[in-house]
């Protein structure tokens, strides 16, 4: 049975698309047939982060209006088997999305895929509601920063009240916290909310902590999901999160400042990899 996973946050710029791309790629790397859908109609960016922007022919709106078949709009990833991308429309407005239209697409995708990832736009308006409506599980991407934590709390409330599962009074959407851009050095200095603080406030299970890393910008520059960079701490942290999602018991890494490094290491190698 296919699972619909919505990647959401309320706040913009916290790493939803980076996380969607990484997570979808990670699931496919582990042999799960995975499709990742961009719900940010009018401002699509998943195509850029996945590096398929030049190959977009049709989009989700074309499929909903019947101008294109679903399999024509799906873009097959050339790096990882079993990974597909369904882009958002750049030219239409978001009114073209309907719960029924999206529902039909998800129903059709569910026949072929194990996981359907929905990359939500920022906000709690239409686009975000469409992205979370069909969710079985939600990954809430949060930065250790006050406005992001508040907005995450808000979106958690929206998931609990506005999802299809909530409307049908079924078992609620399973929620996961993904804490991104975590900087242990600043946490240690008391300048950044600690993981435990965020967990205490949001009170949902932790899926992973992605450390602040230079490799994330490099990955988006080149259009390769950061999880493919398995030397980077962020890439490894995403791979751990995917493993945990699939039920593996992985200890959390990159939570503390590196103690092993001597003075020399700290002076000369202190930048985030």
């Amino acid at each position, binding site marked *: 049975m296919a699972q619909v996973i919505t990647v959401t946050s309320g706040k913009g710029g916290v790493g939803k698309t980076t996380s969607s791309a990484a997570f979808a790629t990670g699931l496919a790397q582990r042999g799960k047939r995975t499709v990742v859908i961009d719900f940010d109609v009018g401002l699509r960016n998943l195509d*850029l982060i996945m*590096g398929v*922007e*030049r*190959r*977009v*022919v*049709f989009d989700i709106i*074309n499929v909903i209006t019947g*101008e*294109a*078949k679903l*399999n*024509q709009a799906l873009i097959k990833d050339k790096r990882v088997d079993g990974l597909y991308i369904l882009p958002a429309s*750049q*030219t239409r407005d978001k009114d073209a999305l309907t719960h029924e239209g999206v529902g039909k697409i998800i129903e059709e995708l569910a026949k072929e895929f194990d996981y359907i990832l929905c990359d939500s736009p920022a906000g709690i308006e239409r686009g975000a509601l469409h992205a979370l409506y069909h969710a079985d599980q939600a990954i809430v991407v949060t930065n250790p920063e006050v406005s992001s934590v508040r907005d995450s709390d808000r979106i958690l409330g929206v998931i609990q009240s506005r999802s299809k599962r909530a409307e049908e009074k079924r078992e609620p959407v399973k929620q996961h916290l993904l804490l991104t851009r975590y900087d242990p050095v600043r946490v240690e200095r008391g300048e950044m909310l600690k993981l435990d603080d965020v967990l205490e406030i949001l009170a949902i299970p932790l899926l992973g902590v992605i450390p602040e890393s230079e490799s994330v*910008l*490099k990955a*988006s*520059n*080149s*259009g390769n999901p950061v999880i493919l960079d398995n030397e980077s701490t962020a890439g490894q942290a995403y791979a751990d999160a995917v493993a945990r999602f699939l039920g593996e018991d992985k200890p959390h890494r990159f939570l503390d400042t590196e103690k092993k490094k001597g003075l020399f290491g700290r*002076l*000369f*190698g*202190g*930048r985030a990899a």
Partner: protein
Amino acid sequence: MSWLNFFRSQKPEAPSASAAKDRLQIILAHERVSRDGDDFLPKLQKELLEVVARYVKIDADKVKVDLERGQGMSTLAIGVELPGNGTAKRSAA
């Protein structure tokens, strides 16, 4: 910290920022052109298929549209799977 970088071993890695710029220039050039115009691809596909369908029976599901946007040139490839003799799926209608 910057003067210290001098002593760090520099990895001979292709700078990713130039890749970012190249990718943006190509995709934005295409998007700016099509911003005000209609999205012509669905219509183009429909009309092409109508022409092909006049001569052969085709399955709309077996049509593949591939586009590769490049600098200065893009390639549009439309693949139509034609039913062969014997192996053809015949529509029940």
